[in-house]
C-alpha cells in the first residue's frame, strides 16, 4: 500500500520532528512503566479499597458469613486431630499436640491461601488489567493482605487457648512469631508474583502451585513432630529440611506458641532462630526475584489475558 496523495505525509513529518526535539523535556513519562512494589505503596488508598472489597464480598450471600473463616480451619483441625492425634496416637506422644497442630495449621493456611490467591489474582482481575493501567502488583499484594486478615481471628483463638493452658513466652519467642509471620507473607507475595506472572500466559502455573501447596503442607512439620523427622533423616538432609523457609517459619511458630505451654517437656530442634532469619532472607530474595520476573512479563499482561 503506497502513500496516498495529499498533504498528510508532510504534516506527520513536521509533527514528528517537533516531537523528537522535545522528548527529553522533564514531566514526560512512559505510560504503563511502573515502579513496581513502590507504586503499590504510593497507591495505598486504592490497595486498601481493593482489600476491603475482597473482604466484603468474600462471604456475600452466605448465611454463616465470616463464621466460615472459623468453621473451615476448625473442621480441618478436627479431621487431622482425629486421624493423626487419636488414631496414630501423636496426642499421646507429643505434649499439647492440639496446640502444636493448630499453630502449624494456621500458619500454613495463611501461606497457602496467600500464595494460591496471589497466583490467580492477575487472571481473576483480567477484565480490569486489559482496560485500565494500574500498578498490577496491587493484585498479588492485596491477595496476601486478605489472607493475613483471614488469619488474624484464628491467631486470636490460638492465643486464647494458649493463655488458658498456661503460656509463658519470652521476648525472643515473641520476636520469632513476628519473623515467622513476616517470612510466610513475604514468601507468598514473592512466589505469588512469580507464578502469577507466569500464569497469565501459561495456566499450567496455577495447577503447579496447587501441587506445591500440597507438598508444602506435608513437607513441613505441621502435622507430625519434627523430632520424628530428625530420627529418620541424616544430619545433612535435616539441614536441608530446615532450610525450607516454610519449615523454619513453622518451627518458629511452634517455638513461640506451643513450646512455652509445655513446661519444657516439648522437643524443639536447635537453631530455630538462625533458620528463621535465613528463611526471612531467602523470602526477601524470592520477593525481589518475583518482582523482577513480574516486571519483565508485565508488558504482555494486557494482550495475553
Amino acid at each position, binding site marked *: *500500500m503506497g*502513500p*496516498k496523495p*495529499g*498533504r*498528510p505525509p508532510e*504534516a*506527520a513529518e513536521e*509533527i*514528528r520532528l*517537533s*516531537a*523528537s526535539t*522535545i*522528548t527529553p*523535556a522533564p*514531566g*514526560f*513519562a*512512559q*505510560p*504503563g*512503566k511502573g515502579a513496581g512494589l513502590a507504586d503499590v505503596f504510593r*497507591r495505598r*488508598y*486504592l490497595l486498601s*479499597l*481493593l482489600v476491603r*472489597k475482597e473482604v*466484603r*464480598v468474600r462471604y*456475600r*450471600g452466605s448465611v454463616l458469613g465470616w463464621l466460615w473463616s472459623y468453621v473451615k480451619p476448625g473442621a480441618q483441625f478436627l479431621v487431622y486431630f482425629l486421624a493423626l492425634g487419636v488414631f496414630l496416637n501423636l496426642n499421646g506422644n507429643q505434649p499439647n499436640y492440639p496446640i502444636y497442630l493448630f499453630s502449624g495449621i494456621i500458619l500454613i493456611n495463611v501461606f497457602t491461601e496467600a500464595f494460591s490467591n496471589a497466583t490467580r489474582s492477575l487472571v481473576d482481575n483480567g*477484565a*480490569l*488489567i*486489559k*482496560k*485500565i*493501567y*494500574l500498578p498490577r502488583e496491587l493484585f498479588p499484594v492485596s491477595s496476601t493482605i486478605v489472607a493475613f486478615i483471614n488469619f488474624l481471628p484464628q491467631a486470636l483463638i490460638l492465643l486464647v487457648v494458649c493463655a488458658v493452658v498456661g503460656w509463658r513466652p519470652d521476648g525472643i519467642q515473641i520476636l520469632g512469631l513476628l519473623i515467622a509471620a513476616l517470612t510466610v507473607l513475604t514468601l507468598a507475595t514473592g512466589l505469588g508474583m512469580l507464578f502469577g506472572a507466569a500464569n497469565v500466559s501459561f495456566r499450567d502455573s496455577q495447577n503447579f502451585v496447587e501441587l506445591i501447596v500440597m507438598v508444602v503442607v506435608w513437607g513441613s512439620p505441621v502435622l507430625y513432630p519434627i523430632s520424628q523427622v530428625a530420627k529418620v533423616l541424616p544430619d545433612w538432609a535435616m539441614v536441608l529440611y530446615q532450610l525450607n523457609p516454610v519449615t523454619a517459619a513453622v518451627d518458629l511458630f511452634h517455638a513461640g506458641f506451643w513450646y512455652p505451654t509445655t513446661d519444657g517437656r516439648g522437643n524443639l530442634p536447635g537453631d530455630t532462630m538462625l533458620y528463621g532469619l535465613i528463611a526471612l532472607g531467602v523470602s526477601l530474595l524470592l520477593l525481589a526475584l518475583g518482582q523482577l520476573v513480574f516486571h519483565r512479563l508485565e*508488558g504482555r499482561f*494486557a*494482550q495475553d489475558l
Partner: protein
Amino acid sequence: MPRTSEAVQPRVIVDGVTKRFLLRHTHSLKETFVAAVQRKPLASTFDALDGISFAIEEGQSVALLGYNGSGKSTLLKLISGVLQPDRGEVLTRGRIAGLIEVGAGFHPDLSGRENVYLNAAILGMTQKEITARFDEIVAFSEIEQFIDTEVKHYSSGMFLRLAFSVAIHTEVDILLVDEILSVGDEPFQRKCIAKIRQLHEEGKTLVVVSHDLNMVSDICERGILINRGKLIFDGPSKEAVARMREQ
C-alpha cells in the same frame, strides 16, 4: 488546525510506534507437537500499528479515525499504558484517565457508593478528591436514590450512567474516550457530550475514538486517520472524516 506553539509542550508524543501481536496457532503441547510434525507454522505476527508518529498539544482534542481493525483502539491502549509498544516510544505528560469500557472496575456485590470510591481510586484519584467530588458524581448520574443499593440490582442504563459519571469526573490532564455514545439514553448522551465539551474548554486534552463521525468531527478539531495500522491522514477533523468516507 493543530495548534503549534513554542512555549507549550505537547501532552502526548507518539514516536515511531509499532505494535505487533503474536498470533499463536497452537494452544497446548499436543497441538504444538502435531503442528511441528506437520511442519505448519506455530505462530504468525500481525502489525496492529506500523510506525505511527504524532504529537498532541495541550488543550487539543483529537479524533482517532478508522474502520474496525484499523488499530485505533490499540493506539488508545498504548497511550493509556495498558499495552506497551514493540518499537518506538509513547510519552505522556500529566495525569491521564480513560473512559475506556466504563465500569471495568465495578463489582456487582458492592453498593453504588462503594463502587464510586473504588472506581475513582482505580482511575487514579485520591481519597480527598473523591470525597470532594462525590456529590457531583452522583448528581450527574441522576441515581441518587439508588446509591446505597448493590450495583447488581441496577439496570444496565443506571450502571453505565454511574460508571461514566465517575470516569468523567476524574481529575485529569488527558482524557481518553472510547465509544462514548454507547452510554445511556439520548438526553444522557447529550449531557455527556456537553460535559466533554466543557472539559475541552477548560483546557483538557482529549483523544476520542468513535464511529459516530459527525459527533467526533464536531467535538474534535483534529483528526488522525489510521488504516491497517498506518497513519494516512493527520489534519483538520472535517477533512479527515471526508477522507475516511472516500475510502
